[in-house]
């Protein structure tokens, strides 16, 4: 049954998707384009660009999109549930494991190191998104203005995203981007 196959495939993807998002991309491509041949490579590239333009994790975006294309609404439901179920399993395991470990070793020290180590990942994500999105003078100016506003006015980060989105619409309307 196709709905069940969708669930299993996306379950597999979620189970091994280490590092999330773009790390999972090659696994997703392999499973849905090469192994199952559910969509072609062009469609897959379209899907990636849609995912980059729209909010939400890329794994959920691909699950919903592929599921819908293969088996309609219920297909998208099955794939999406499939891709998030492993998260639930992994989190239950890690939380239990941490509880056990905290009695034996100094997890505070490990977490302190992890808190420092993760800054490198966040900077890499900033560079990735930055180089992918700042592609014209308009974007540079928008970024500088956004940064000044964020520093000076302590505006909520949600407003920063919304306002830069609205600026993007104007940029598009007057053909700056």
């Amino acid at each position, binding site marked *: 049954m196709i709905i069940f196959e969708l669930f299993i495939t996306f379950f597999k993807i979620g189970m091994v998707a280490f590092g*999330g998002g773009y790390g999972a991309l090659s696994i997703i491509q392999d499973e849905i384009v090469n192994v199952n041949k559910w969509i072609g490579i062009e469609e897959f590239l379209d899907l990636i660009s849609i995912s980059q333009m729209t909010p939400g994790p890329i794994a959920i975006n691909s699950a919903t999109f592929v599921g819908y294309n293969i088996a309609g609404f219920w297909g*998208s439901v099955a794939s999406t549930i499939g891709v998030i179920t492993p*998260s639930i399993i992994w989190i239950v395991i890690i939380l239990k494991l941490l509880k056990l470990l905290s009695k034996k070793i100094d997890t505070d020290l490990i977490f302190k190191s992890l808190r420092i180590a*993760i800054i490198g990942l966040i900077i890499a*994500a*900033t560079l990735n998104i930055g180089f992918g999105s700042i592609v014209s003078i308009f974007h540079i100016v928008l970024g500088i203005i956004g940064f000044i506003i964020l520093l000076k006015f302590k505006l909520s980060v949600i407003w920063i*995203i919304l306002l830069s*989105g609205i600026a993007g619409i104007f940029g598009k309307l007057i053909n700056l981007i």
Partner: protein
Amino acid sequence: MNPLKLFWIFFRVSALTIGGGYAMIPVIKEFIVDKFKVLEEKEFMDVIVTAQTVPGVIAINTAMIMGHKLSGIKGAFFSVLGCVIPPFSIILTIAFFFSNIASFELFEGFFSGARVGVTVILAKLSFDLVKKNVSHPLYLIIIAISAGIIFFTSISAVVVLLSSCVVIYFIVKGEKSK
């Protein structure tokens, strides 16, 4: 914390953050640490790092641990639900209307601008985290190297995270025993 409140927080976070797991961090932080003050920044970052260390969708991992920490199983359920509904409905809408979105250009403009906004808030978060956590010049070098490796090579971010964590662990330990 009320699970429904968590639902609404993660709904907004998920609906607005383009760029996946990492882009969500500053937005969740604003709600959980700055606005509702239910977690200290340190505890908040512990949730974030735990979510990175296991496979799965990072955004979902984060929502689950955060929800669980703040209001148990119910909290985890509603946080995950809030996280899933926005991208699910947006993609479904696009898949449904894909060929005839008349306003697709404006939509594209919005997200093109919004991604710059995400870059800005992520850059600010990076600066803040460096300022707060880097108490040793060696940390800065390790952070720079790992950012460079992830950005320029295809080595998995988790591998980089765990190996730089090991190096930092020994420096932290060495500092402590001094």
